[in-house]
């Protein structure tokens, strides 16, 4: 999820406020697919990806393309508006109740000494890890990935090399949202539950992880997310579970004050 954030930020050059809702829609699509297909997880992940991909295209058409010649803050505010619209529609569409995600491993776990590890956790981790590797390959080896990197570094130069910048932005954003959809489904599996309003806090956490790792850096986002998770769980273990979110946002503030460029961030990256 943080990785999706990072791509959007890098390629579109924009902080988006709609990512949380993209995740929610992906999660619910995955949830219904899971019910309809009687627990076909692969299909659910794929459906979550597809739904969010499409949503990504919509976001692009509504929030980014019309305001390209305007300041970045215009598009930013447009994403806030769209996010509110989508959040409210989600409550109408999916109901305001929390939905319980069936666990494909029937809550089985294996024990490693004193530590219990659920199969679901292993599965989620494996999928995320696999996606990271895949993404890394796409970004560094394919023309699409090169195009994304070119656009993120220098839009003007990319256009002068014959690259369709708008198309790259569209596809990059769609890809990022698609990944958000997958992460939504995975989150649902991890917590066994999804809720139409879970997007906001998720998005803030993803944002924190992204800032922590360094804005626009994909590796950084992965590391940031990982570290954030560790810190949060330490807080839960040492204080109480109520402190989980506090720790996340304390980290955000601390990073912004101490090292705004994050762990892997480049100094003075210009996002224009």
């Amino acid at each position: 999820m943080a990785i999706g954030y990072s791509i959007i930020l890098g390629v579109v050059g924009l902080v988006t406020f709609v990512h949380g809702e993209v995740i929610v829609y992906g999660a619910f699509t995955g949830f219904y697919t899971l019910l309809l297909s009687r627990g076909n997880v692969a299909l659910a992940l794929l459906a979550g990806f597809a739904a969010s991909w499409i949503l990504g295209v919509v976001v692009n058409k509504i929030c980014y393309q019309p305001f390209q010649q305007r300041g970045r803050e215009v598009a930013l505010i447009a994403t806030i508006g769209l996010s509110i619209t989508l959040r409210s529609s989600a409550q109408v569409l999916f109901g305001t109740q929390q939905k319980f995600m069936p666990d494909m491993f029937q809550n089985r776990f294996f024990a490693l000494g004193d530590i219990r590890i659920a199969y679901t956790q292993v599965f989620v981790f494996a999928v995320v890890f696999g996606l990271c590797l895949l993404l890394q390959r796409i970004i560094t080896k394919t023309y699409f990935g090169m195009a994304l990197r070119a656009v993120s570094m220098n839009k003007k130069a990319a256009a002068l090399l014959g690259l369709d910048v708008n198309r790259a932005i569209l596809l990059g954003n769609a890809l990022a949202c698609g990944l958000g959809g997958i992460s939504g489904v995975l989150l649902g599996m991890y917590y066994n539950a999804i809720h139409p309003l879970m997007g906001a806090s998720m998005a803030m956490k993803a944002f924190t992880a992204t800032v922590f790792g360094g804005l626009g850096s994909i590796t950084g986002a992965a590391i940031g997310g990982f570290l954030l998770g560790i810190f949060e769980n330490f807080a839960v273990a040492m204080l109480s579970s109520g402190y989980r979110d506090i720790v996340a946002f304390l980290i955000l503030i601390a990073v912004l004050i101490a090292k705004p460029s994050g762990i892997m961030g480049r100094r003075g990256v210009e996002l224009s």
Partner: protein
Amino acid sequence: MALKGVNIEVHEKEIVTLIGSNGAGKTTTLMGISNLIRKRSGRITFYDWDITNEKPHRIVQMGLCHVPEGRQIFPYLTVEENLRMGVFGNYHLRNKRRVLEESLEQVYMLFPILRERRKQLGGTLSGGEQQMLAIGRGLMLQPKLMMLDEPSLGLAPVIVEQIFELLLRIREMGTTILLIEQNANMALQIADRGYVLELGQIVLSGKAKDLAFDSRVKSAYLGLSC
């Protein structure tokens, strides 16, 4: 910057230069051709195509390459990646590995220094090397016409001379060149013809040799009094 009545013609295998002082509208002219800015009126044709309102990336794909002012290389990509980026505009090239490698080889032949530095990040190169990289990246497209915006900007005179000699070699290889320069003296030395732009209008044009000896050009741009 507003342009008015700018009429430029570039023939095949020519080096044409557009000179003028700071703020005369040189870069604006190029941006207009590449369609990076909106034009209120006028017409631009490239061979038989009307490219006045063509999308920027399509123009590049037709073989009209624009090496922008300030080089605009990708600082966090290696030299070789930067060069490979150059073939985005050319679908034929980017899908044919052999042709791509040939293109790369050709660029390395012209700029041996780039071969030496091919694993280095673009941002770590010196100004002159970055300019060579920008030109090399443009050449990867095997363009018919190459437009260069102030390649001498911020470079030591020795380096500028090197780059201009390379431009002559690039022309020999069959690429037409439209060179935008503030350094009129150097530009007129290698160009066949030239245009002088002043406050958005062409005030003089003709053979480069004649322009170099024109008293108005001399006093205004070459820093010589007569």
